[in-house]
């Protein structure tokens, strides 16, 4: 079972969370990224995520492998949407389970940070004024 997935359709969190439950795990930390109605002062109507899917899935799996090495966690997973998203839609989900809450939080935070900086997914924002632009952050 893949732990990192790109999903072109809306996805349910409940079954993903369920797979992280384990009798030895007492702690579960999760993160969800939703489409906000603004970014850097501009009103946003929605956005479009594009990925280089093959590379994104390979890099995502690598991040989760690294998280399992770096942190004392039981399991971790991540799903990232692609396609057209409206304000309020779920864009990304990360979950991590562990015996203790410290590593669960730290791994969850580290995974989303790495996904945002390393996985080939690009966001095009659609502004209320009708313009669009790809985000290619500096750094």
């Amino acid at each position, binding site marked *: 079972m893949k732990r990192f997935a790109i999903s072109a359709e809306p996805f349910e969190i409940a079954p993903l969370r369920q797979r992280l439950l384990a009798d030895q795990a007492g702690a579960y930390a999760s993160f969800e990224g939703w489409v906000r109605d603004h970014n850097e002062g501009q009103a946003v109507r929605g956005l479009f995520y594009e990925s*280089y899917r*093959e590379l994104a899935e390979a890099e995502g799996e690598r991040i989760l492998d690294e998280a399992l090495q770096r942190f004392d966690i039981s399991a971790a997973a991540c799903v990232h949407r692609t396609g057209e998203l409206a304000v309020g839609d779920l864009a990304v989900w990360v979950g991590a389970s562990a015996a203790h809450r410290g590593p669960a939080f730290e791994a969850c935070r580290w995974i989303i940070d790495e996904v*945002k900086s*390393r996985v*080939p997914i690009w966001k095009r924002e659609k502004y209320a004024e009708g313009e669009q632009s790809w985000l290619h952050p500096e750094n």
Partner: protein
Amino acid sequence: MSITVLYFASLRDAAGRDSEQLPLPASLRGLYDELRARHGFSLPAERLRVAVDGSFAAWDSPVHEGSEVAFIPPVSGG
């Protein structure tokens, strides 16, 4: 002797296509600079990563006949 180049995000918009077949280049860096001039890409090579055959690669990696090359603009997932 050719390779496939994949375009994503702003590079795809500027190139007006998802991919193209090109002759085997001498280097990845030379290939990008040539494509940047041809398609008017705004991003310099220093801001991109490069992937060959579905894995990130170094800019000085060799390119082989039939390779699939992608120039990766700064990512913005999450």
